[in-house]
């Protein structure tokens, strides 16, 4: 068994809500007095779960609570969780930008964050000077930078401009140069937060490739945060699932992603009836959209070729059904906002049933390529649009041997997975 690279013990992080500082010098002094007398901070409260959706009178929020895990050297670990689950806080503590409230983290080797590229770049300095500046901020010594200097310049493709101040660089060159330095840092532990990722799609892809190479070939430890389950599944072997600041899953990436999918149900059950980014006259109002597999289990993760049932519930005034043509549509868009499918009741030339409060769209086999898909809901009659909401929900499609041959399809190079045979 290989060595442990990161060991996290009883880690908690508390944030103060509202204004920072207790606001008054009196309570600051109170806290100070309590501390030097070795007493518990009088302003401290514990045992409060971080759930942003509920309003609270508590002064503090636990962004992380009692987290324990170990990461083996050379593992690529995906950190999964909804927004606000504590992923970024965890990374901030591991990269020593902030410190925990309790508990500890022990690590072996140098830690670096791949996507914080170009930190410390000074516009007045030349490319050459900035390579040294940026490199030393990230903890490289002058000698190290010198020995890798030519490689870095080569990789960046900025050789001609290396003695020009970076303020004259195009933004593309700026990013390339910055990334080139990060890519040659060779830390033992690499942190990649896709949530914070900047740059265009190509650049992000470059980062992911680099990360893949780093973990596979160089045996380095990688921590990867992303909302893209497909990317996490391809890049990581293990996963950690956070929810409301607590660790609820730790194991193989497949198990953790599945656990995440099950947990997602919670969020799918939240009502959309109080969304207000909607257009229309309001004669019909969408209340909810839910996704089920054909066994009737609610989920938002599907494999290519699986069946999907979309349950759209609504409330409608009688006036809506007075019209002759009533229709409900679902638009499906990919992550780049290209329309990939359109499901409409009008195809079947049926009007919406006035007695029901839910309409079910059943897709027998979903053949969209892997990725995230967003849904729009649209309802209309002859009088015009009744309700139209963009991006009400999304599902994630995963690829899992659709053809049954063990062959894989390349990611991001296809929009749909179609049936075919060879003769």
């Amino acid at each position, binding site marked *: 068994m290989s060595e*442990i690279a990161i*060991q996290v013990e009883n880690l908690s992080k508390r*944030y*103060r809500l509202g204004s*920072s*500082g207790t606001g008054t010098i009196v309570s*600051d002094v109170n806290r100070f007095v309590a501390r030097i007398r070795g007493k518990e901070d009088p302003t401290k409260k514990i045992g409060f779960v971080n759930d942003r959706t509920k309003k609270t009178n508590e002064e503090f929020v636990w962004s992380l609570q009692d987290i324990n895990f170990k990461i083996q050297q050379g593992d690529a670990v995906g950190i999964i969780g909804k927004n606000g689950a504590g992923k970024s806080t965890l990374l*901030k*503590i*591991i*990269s*020593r*930008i*902030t*410190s*925990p*409230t*309790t*508990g*500890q*983290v*022990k*690590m*072996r*080797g*140098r*830690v670096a*964050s791949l996507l*914080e590229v170009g*930190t*410390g770049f*000074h516009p*007045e*300095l030349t490319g050459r*000077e900035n390579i*040294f*500046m940026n490199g*030393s*901020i*990230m*903890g*490289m*010594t*002058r000698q190290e930078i010198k020995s890798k200097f030519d490689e870095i310049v080569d990789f960046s493709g900025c050789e001609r401009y290396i003695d020009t*101040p970076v303020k004259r660089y195009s933004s593309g060159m700026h990013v390339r140069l910055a990334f080139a330095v990060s890519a040659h840092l060779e830390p033992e532990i690499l942190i990649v937060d896709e949530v914070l990722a900047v740059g265009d799609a190509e650049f992000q892809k470059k980062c992911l490739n680099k990360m893949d190479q780093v973990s596979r070939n160089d045996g380095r430890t990688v921590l990867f945060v992303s909302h893209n389950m497909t990317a996490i599944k391809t890049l990581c072997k293990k996963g950690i699932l956070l929810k409301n600041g607590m660790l609820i899953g730790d194991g193989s990436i497949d198990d953790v992603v599945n656990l995440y999918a099950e947990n997602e149900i919670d969020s799918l059950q939240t009502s959309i009836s109080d969304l207000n980014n909607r257009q229309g006259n309001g004669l019909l109002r969408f209340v909810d959209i839910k996704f089920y597999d054909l066994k009737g289990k609610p989920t938002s993760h599907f494999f290519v070729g699986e069946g999907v049932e979309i349950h759209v519930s609504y409330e409608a005034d009688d006036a809506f059904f007075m019209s002759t043509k009533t229709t409900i549509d679902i638009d499906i868009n990919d992550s780049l906002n290209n329309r990939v499918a359109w499901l409409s009741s009008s195809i079947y030339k049926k009007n919406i049933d006035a007695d029901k409060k839910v309409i079910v769209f059943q897709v027998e086999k979903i053949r969209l390529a892997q990725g995230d898909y967003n849904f729009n809901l649209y309802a209309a009659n002859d009088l015009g649009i009744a309700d139209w909401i963009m991006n009400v929900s999304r599902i994630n499609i995963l690829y899992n041997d659709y053809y049954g041959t063990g062959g894989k399809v390349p990611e991001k190079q296809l929009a749909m997975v179609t049936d075919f045979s060879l003769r």
Partner: protein
Amino acid sequence: MKDKGKWDIYIQPKSNWFELRLLDVWKYRDLIFMFVKRDFIAQYKQTILGPIWFLIQPLITTIVFIVVFGKIAGLSTDGQPQILFYLSGVLFWNYFSSTFLKISETFLANTNIFSKIYFPRLVVPISVVLSSMISFGIQLILFVIIFTYYLISKDFYPAINSGILLFPILVLIMAALSIGMGIIISSMTIKYRDLRYLVTFGVPLLMYATPIVYPLSSIKDPTFIFLLKLNPMTGIIETFRYSIFGIGVLDIYTLFYSAFITIILLILGIAIFNKVEKNFMDSI
């Protein structure tokens, strides 16, 4: 874990007040060097006069002092040439005030870098102290040139004495004082921004509570002298002037007091800075 010593990085909630991690700072010495270089290069890029600005600023200040305090107000310079008298004070005061002000902005000015990447935060104030030392050095050369010119061509016979041997110590105290006070203020401005305004207008005023534009010997009221000597910069400047002009007396107690206060402020500053640097991102 069987071998605790094998861990490279420990992250814990609270450090001891005096967990210095100087070794950590030493590991980042190349970064200190880069910061100093960056400050030096970036400061006068795209200026016509470039590093000459290092000289123009104290010269013009000195000329203004000569006109306002020397000619108009007619303050004593203890019989020394006015330009040398004022410049000797400006030299030290400039270093102290600019370094102190810059360090007191450490956290607010570097939030961007600090929020992204870890390095020992003490690297920043240390690099400020060093890069200000460069301009101090250049200005010192200017002073020596003018001093020599006066020696050769004017009727000027200063009593340079062995006090000059204290010069490195004076510089050391001055640097330590500015870093100590700077990091205290920088740590406290995170919570109390008021200090920032206080410092920005307070430091220039503090100059008048330091014998820069007048010699300590021109003060007759013993209460005033006592108050002036409470200012740790007083001992430094008076000692310097004593050693090159031979004016006044070598008041070793005042210098000891300056050194003592400096050490206290430095220790206090490092303790507070240590405490604050770990969590400042949460309260900035």
